[in-house]
């Protein structure tokens, strides 16, 4: 399994040219080869969503995508959300609403919510709840995540 090929991942606007085996998952490439450890691995079978990143504008589970499939595509991770010292409204809302405890699932929820709301800013509360039910959190019981995402959705619409 040593047939590595060169690919370029554009993560948060920066190109990373790396050599990977075909079987290498995108999340391993992001974390280990590109050093962006803000994206977390929770299950590696596509259920918990901790590894959610945005690829070409779409939230994806980076444990279910091979790195080679992301060659040349634009990836956004949690590290790219804030602008300088200023938190993204979604990050700020999570802080304001106590939407995180251990913080392990948080990057996945942030990228999921941001990715979906950028595409569909006027999503209904019920649809938003459906979207959020695609990721797992073990600490918060979700209530504050839901509050935070709804508040941030409002904020993102008025920006």
């Amino acid at each position: 399994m040593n047939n590595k090929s060169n690919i370029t991942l554009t993560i948060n606007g920066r190109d990373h040219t790396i050599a990977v085996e075909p079987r290498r998952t995108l999340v391993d490439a992001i974390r280990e080869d590109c050093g962006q450890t803000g994206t977390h691995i929770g299950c590696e079978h596509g259920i918990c969503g901790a590894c959610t990143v945005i690829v070409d504008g779409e939230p994806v589970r980076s444990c279910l995508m091979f790195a080679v499939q992301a060659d040349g595509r634009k990836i956004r991770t949690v590290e790219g959300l804030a602008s300088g010292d200023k938190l993204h409204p979604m990050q700020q809302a999570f802080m304001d609403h106590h939407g995180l405890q251990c913080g392990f699932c948080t990057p996945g929820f942030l990228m999921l919510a941001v990715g979906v709301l950028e595409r569909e800013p006027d999503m209904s509360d019920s649809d938003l709840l459906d979207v959020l039910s695609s990721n797992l959190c073990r600490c918060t019981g979700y209530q504050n995540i839901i509050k935070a995402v709804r508040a941030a959705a409002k904020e993102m619409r008025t920006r």
Partner: protein
Amino acid sequence: MSTKQKFVGRSVPRLEDRLLLLGQGRFAADISFAGQWQMRVVRSPVAHGKIKSIDIQAAVGLPGVRAVWTHVDTAHIPHIPFRLTGFKTLEPYQQPVLAKNVVRYVGEPVAVIFAEDTYVAEDAADLVRLSIEHLPAIIFAAEEPGIYERQLTTEAGVVQKSYGDVDAAFRNAPAVVSLELSIGRHSGVPLETRGAIARYDEAHDILELHGAAKVPHWNRDTLAQMLHRNKESVQLYEGHVGGGFGIRGEIYPEDILVCAAALKFRRPVKWVEDRREHLIAANHSREQHHRVSAAVDAQGCILGIEDEFFHDNGAYMRTHAATVPDLAAAMLPGPYRVPAYRAIGHIRLTNKTPCGTYRAPGRYESTFVRERLLDAIAAKFGLDGVEIRKRNLVDRKEMPYSLGLDTLGTKVVYDSGDYALLLKKALKAARWDELQKKLRKRRQSGEKVGAGVAIFVEKSGLGPFDTVRIEVKPDGTVEVITGVASIGQGVETVIAQICADTLGVDYANIRVIHGQTNRIARGMGAFASRVTVMCGEATRLAATKLRARVLRAAAELMQTKAESLDIVNGEIVRVSAPGPSMPMAELARARPDGLSAEDTFESTHMVYPYGAHVAAVRVDPETGNVAVERYVVAYEIGRAVNPKLVEGQITGGLAQGVGGALFEEFRYDKNGEPLSVTFADYLMPTAREVPEISVVICEDAPSPLNPLGLKGAGEGGANPVGAVIASAIDEALQCPGAVTQLPVTPQRLRALM
């Protein structure tokens, strides 16, 4: 003079959040060292069997593989010792780091691969050939015990607790109610799997373990002992921790293996668990089978309770030893007056993943049993569930209330409480009478809806001590160095709030150090909802001392008396007279030895928070699905340092409780093959399944055992959820006592109808 800011009691934002939101957390998998090897564990695919041979040749030969270990390489390492409730009779059942002759559960480590790369390590693990002769697997703990080895049976021990004359109570009782109840096997399942990175610093002869959690000092001492080192030459470092819930941070075989390998190979060794491994290797919990009876007088008042239960501890006795069954037995009486009580808990080993504690250990189980019993008594007397509970509650005038039992080396004495008042508040928040009317009406129109109430006593603030040192740094930062740990619950914020008020600084200028064995000589860690109570009071004590020291030193420089000075927002100011003030940092810089103080809080008794949950559910007769429509929690916390964080703890615990009540279960087939090995089989609640929750935080009964009146918040969200949902389902089905087993999965519910 500026007004003094108060932080305790306010829902200030968490100090932890910013880094985590920016993706700058340092979780175990994020820690790497140059030249590190990756460790992969080869696990038994067989539930019970004799190891005939382990062929590692092909694995060793794979390029990139540096070493492969089997039991012969770890023969010098003793079995993993107990941390709590470690009765001598249980010791023969301790787990080896790698299986020697016998494997006892699917998932048991039998070999380890060390390789340069995780992918190669996994390839190599697949090449290890195991020859294992199958032995019959024991799956049901309530059946007759089998043979463990030689003369040892699979009944590792028996927990017995009693007081009063139980036999007389039953002999003379006008009525007896008996139930047989089961709680399923589930566990904490934090979103971050386990991880451990060991590094040997040869120059200083120090073994470092990164990725530590929960009880770093205890683990440091134990690892040192197991690896024959001085404890000063072993240091543990806690980074960010992706959820604990009781199961993370205990010493597991993998922690010892990375340490032993780092020492042997002089290379950093990293292990990160995958999810399948986690579900079959990390501690399970909860599974118990109870046969319980209550003797009751003509008014429905309890005369005595007798409980015999079977605790399925899985294949070995791990660090918690008898803790869970011990707590189940000690906490079963709960908030009710039980004049005579006897519990006999059989600790049984089966061929399943070994067990430990999980949030509200023993209490999730025994609250389910007790509250089912109260519901059964109510049904027998034709009374409603609220009335029967009111009749049996311990009165506030009886506080402090000694139960006549002990657990975790302490006597169970409820320190303070007004259970009736709390129940009243819960029912009021739930608009109980109105809810009942509405549900009745909906039932009349054919809906299967119902509500239930459950009351419980929690425990928290386990001692025996916590030590805190506070230092004022030359830049004005205040550092609070503790021996506790952070597992995501908000320790840094809460401890900073307490320090801020006592010392007179902004909580945001305080840095709370935890989980670093090189920063403080001893510490107790984070378990048993102990941190805010024990470390909070130690912080208050140390801050009080430091404050006096600061004022004394400042008084000299400012040529006044200490009594006429105060500290406000980090500035030493004159209380009444006008005049120049002085930043605390300046004072710290002026003193060659700096400014610091240390103090210890000791406590031999736990503190007992309590609560009541009300749930309303709707059962779908077609699918067997249970939807939780409404949920109210009233919880007595003594004093809420940060109400929002208390609420967060309760809501999070509740979600886990809902999981255990309706969805989560580690299932096994009859051969001991685990069937819940992915998140598609082990179903944790999502945002869709967790209801909106109203939380009423009560501060009516501050603990008399610490000056701030603190009680713990960690476990009251989870404790009675199984009980209250069972009660609500009974009512929805109009079938008292229908639910006897958790979780109430759709299949089980359909079978009840």
